[in-house]
Structure formats: structure tokens, C-alpha cells
């Protein structure tokens, strides 16, 4: 079995294990057998609580994983993931703004979608100089992301106390508010966005060799960059809308997938699997009571993500030498 196939099999097996653990385990543990046998209470727990939350965590994870991997390869930069170049921060700021203006947490959905789309458009407009250079896209996104994070903080301090605490919880990222409506829409977004990225994957991989070579091979770098960045931005905005900004999945999934498969390209299906696994794993940890409360999933991805980012960057440094 090639390493490429083995990587898919192993990540798939880990995900499957987590899925079973999520459906049957947790507190209180669910009785899968009873649910399948038709026990009404167990059925309700399974179908209305566990399953939609699981589907949402997988769909969000997969969306972030694919968006991140595509952008990193396309922009030739491991830092170019959408949570770092401002797309996530824009969606979060949009959500926080909408919650403050409309006075309810439900406003997060339109707010995140609008904020994400506007931010992506703004980043690309600012980076456009007779074409979009990858490095300016990354740097402008980074700067804009920092400004938007500050904006979110301002919005948060303007909010009345109760709303502010709800918004703050939303902003750490969590799958706790999952229902079938969210799970369904997010799955659809992931499927459509994933299909678009998959269609571009062949060209994205070739952009990684530099624009000159891409043009020589008959490709149009700028139009590819615009389409892929827009698709990635929408995937990220959709996941922020339903689960808040879950940090680091977009950043981590691509490098993990590329390392596991020993492939330099976008490896989108594997990045989706890894992203989904990270999402479910974080949500699984979020189900464990810590000090009498439960921490949101985003805390756990941040806890893994920070050190992992450090390791990745240190390894890059070593490679340079």
C-alpha cells in the first residue's frame, strides 16, 4: 500500500473511531444499541443532539481544512491560511457587529457571511497591483486581520454585558449550538465549496511553482487566485457563521495532510479528512467537563494549534539551512 493510500486509511480510521466515541460516549453516555432498537429517549439524544453536532463538526473541519490547504499551496506560504490572512477575522468581526446591532446571537449567521465576503473582497482589492502577488495578499491579509480583531474587541466592549458574554463565547468557536438546520447548510456549503476547490486543485498545485512557470504551462494565475481565494473565503465565512471562528484547523490540516501523504500538493480530500478529524476531536474534548464547566471546542484547537504552528515554523527554519 502506498503512503498516499495509507495516510487516507489511517486518518479515516481515526475519524471513524472518534465518530463512534462521539455517538456512543460522552456524558451521559448514549446507548447506541437502544437507539437503534427504537428506544424513544435514546433516539432523540442521538438524532437531535449527537448526530447534528457531529455532522456540523465534520463539515466545518473539512471546509476549513480544504480552504487552508488550497490557499497555502496556491500562495506558496504555510502562513497563508484563511484564519491567519484575515478571512476568519473578518467573518468574526461581521458576526460580532451584527450581534451588537440586532441584539441577538442569531444575527451571527448573516453577519459572518457578510463580514467574510467583504473582508476577502477588500484584501484582494488592496493587494491588486496589475495582478495579485501572493506575498502582498498574505501580508495585507495579515495586517487587515489584526485590525479586524481589534474591531471585534471594540464591538465586544460596546455590547451590553449579557450579550457580550454570549458573543465572547461565540468568538472562541464551538459546535454546541448545532442543530440539523446548521448541520445541513454547512454540509451543503462544504460540498459545493469543496467541489469548486477540487476542480481548481490541478491548477493550484502548478501555481506553487511560481507565476512565470504557471503562465508558461498555459495557466492564468490571477484569475485562478481570485476564484480560489473567493471560494476559500466563503467556506471560512460559512463555518464562522455556524460555529464561530474555530482557530488553527485551516492552518494545520494542510501541512498534516501533506506530511502524512508525502505529497507536495493541496491533497484536498485528505486535508478535508484531517480537518474533519480535528473538528470532531476538538468537540470531543469540549464534551469533557473541566473544573465544573465545559470549554468550547475552539479552545482545544487553539491549544494544539499554537504549539503546532511553532513546530512547523521551526522546521521550516531548519529546512532553509
Amino acid at each position, binding site marked *: 500500500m502506498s503512503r498516499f493510500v495509507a495516510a487516507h486509511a489511517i486518518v479515516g480510521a481515526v475519524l471513524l473511531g472518534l465518530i463512534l466515541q462521539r455517538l456512543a460516549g460522552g456524558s451521559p453516555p448514549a446507548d447506541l444499541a437502544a437507539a437503534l432498537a427504537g428506544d424513544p429517549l435514546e433516539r432523540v439524544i442521538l438524532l437531535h443532539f449527537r448526530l447534528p453536532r457531529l455532522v456540523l463538526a465534520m463539515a466545518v473541519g473539512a471546509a476549513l481544512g480544504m480552504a487552508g490547504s488550497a490557499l497555502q499551496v496556491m500562495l506558496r506560504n504555510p502562513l497563508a491560511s484563511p484564519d491567519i490572512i484575515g478571512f476568519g477575522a473578518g467573518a468574526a468581526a461581521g458576526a460580532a457587529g451584527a450581534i451588537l446591532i440586532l441584539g441577538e446571537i442569531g444575527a451571527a449567521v448573516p453577519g459572518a457571511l457578510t463580514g467574510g465576503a467583504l473582508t476577502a473582497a477588500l484584501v484582494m482589492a488592496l493587494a491588486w497591483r496589475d495582478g495579485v502577488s501572493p506575498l502582498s495578499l498574505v501580508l495585507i491579509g495579515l495586517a487587515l486581520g489584526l485590525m479586524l480583531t481589534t474591531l471585534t474587541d471594540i464591538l465586544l466592549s460596546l455590547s451590553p454585558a449579557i450579550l457580550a458574554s454570549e458573543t465572547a463565547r461565540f468568538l472562541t468557536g464551538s459546535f454546541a449550538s448545532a442543530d440539523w438546520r446548521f448541520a445541513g447548510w454547512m454540509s451543503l456549503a462544504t460540498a459545493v465549496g469543496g467541489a469548486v476547490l477540487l476542480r481548481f486543485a*490541478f491548477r493550484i*498545485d502548478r501555481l506553487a511553482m511560481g507565476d512565470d512557470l504557471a*503562465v*508558461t504551462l498555459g495557466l492564468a494565475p490571477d484569475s485562478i487566485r481570485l476564484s480560489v481565494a473567493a471560494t476559500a473565503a466563503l467556506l471560512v465565512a460559512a463555518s464562522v457563521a455556524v460555529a464561530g471562528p474555530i482557530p488553527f484547523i485551516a492552518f494545520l490540516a494542510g501541512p498534516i495532510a501533506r506530511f502524512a501523504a508525502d505529497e507536495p500538493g493541496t491533497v484536498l480530500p485528505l486535508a478535508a479528512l484531517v480537518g474533519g478529524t480535528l473538528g470532531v476531536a476538538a468537540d470531543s474534548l469540549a464534551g469533557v467537563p473541566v473544573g465544573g464547566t465545559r470549554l468550547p471546542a475552539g479552545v482545544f484547537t487553539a491549544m494544539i494549534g499554537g504549539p503546532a504552528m511553532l513546530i512547523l515554523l521551526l522546521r521550516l527554519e531548519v529546512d532553509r539551512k
Partner: protein
Amino acid sequence: MRGLSAEGLSVQLASRPVLRDVDLTLPEGAVTAIIGPNGCGKSTLLRSLARIVRPSAGRVLLDGEDLWRVEAQARARRIGFLPQMPQTPEGIRVRALVTRGRTPHQGRFGLLSRLDHAAVDQALSMVGLDALSERRVDRLSGGQRQRAWIALTLAQETGILLLDEPTTFLDPPHQVEILRLVRRLQAEIGRTVVMVLHDINLASLFADRVVGMRDGRVVFSTGPGAPLTARQIDDLFGMTVVPVEHQGARRPVFLPKV
């Protein structure tokens, strides 16, 4: 008319004129070297011929048609171009890199036909990397890496090959190795090769024709029976040189006055 030519070609970069009214026809099936001092526009000329840089006036013609009107895939099957510093995707293997040269022959999803595999095999053996095809490109020596990139452009199977300073950053034996390879491409498969070179002597020894550039203009071009002269070099670089006949190649090389 077959082949690549420039007609009154001018290019501005950041509103500074870099090429001024260049007329140049590239002989088919021959090796042309472009030389000139730094900043003379030789790289820009090559990049215009590759359709990377857009002319501000004049045209580049491919088989008599304006290069900017040729459909992208058709153009990519006719002209190959190796930039000065291509980026190696992290962790890519030699064979995978070379296979990317097949892009204009593949469909959108990148399925490879038997023809594609054969072209990759041939390119790898042409540059002598068959045995290293599963190595990581970023672990190769400078000369091997350059050969891998050349193999990519060979796998593209274009009649015209443009190489931007293919020998820069290489030590002398590897420089010669690359240029011998270029000669073989011309001799064995009749490729039209145009390369930008820094070294006057290597240009004189390995090219059928040497084009000299200064201040964005073509100042001279040599041809069969009209080899490079000391006067042309003085003219180009403002450096007095002594011509010496290279016995084996029966071409002149040039040494600086001491």
C-alpha cells in the same frame, strides 16, 4: 512564417523603458544566446518572447500570429520557458516535478496518458536523472536541480525552448554540463533554443548565434560564417579583450587584457 520573432518590440516596466524597438527573428532549430551587461534588457526580452511580459509597443509573433492572441494551451505546447528562479514545491519528487511539464497536454483533472508517461521518461533520461527520479528535488545538488527543471520543460515537448540564465549559480563543470545538454537538444531533437547567458565565452562556444544587447536594444547578432568579434564585445561591455581561437570548437573565446 514559422517560429518566434519580435517586431518593433518595446517594453516598459514600472513606466521605465526596458526594451526599445527590438526586431529579432529566431532561427528555427538553432541555439541562440543573448548576452549583454546587467540591466540591458536581455531577461525582459526573453520574458516577452515567453508571453510573461506584455509589450508596450510592437509585437511578438508565433508562427506569424500575435503571441498575445494565441490560445493559452496552444501556446504552451509550442513555447517552453524556464525562469531564472523557479520555485520548488516543498517535498516534491523529481518525477512529479517533471510530470508537471505535461500540463498543457493534460485535461483539467490531470489524468496522464501513456504518451505523457513516455514524454516524462524520455525527458528524465535526456538529462540523466532516471536513477534519481524518486528523490526529493530540494535534496538535489544545484546542477541536478537545474537538470530536473530543464527536464520539466523538455517534458512539455515544445519546439521552442527559452532558458533564462540556466547556468547561473552553478559551478563551471555543471555550467558546461547544462550547455552540452542544450546542444544535444538541438542536435538530437531539433529544438529551437534561446538562452540568456552571462558568460561571453560559453555563449561563443555553445551557441549557433549570439545576440548582443545594450540599453534595451539589439546591437549585433552573429551568424554562420560571422563569429563573435573582440570589437563587438568591447562595444557591448566597454571592455578590451583579446580573441583566442578555441582549437576544438573552432570558435573564438575572449580573454581580458592584463
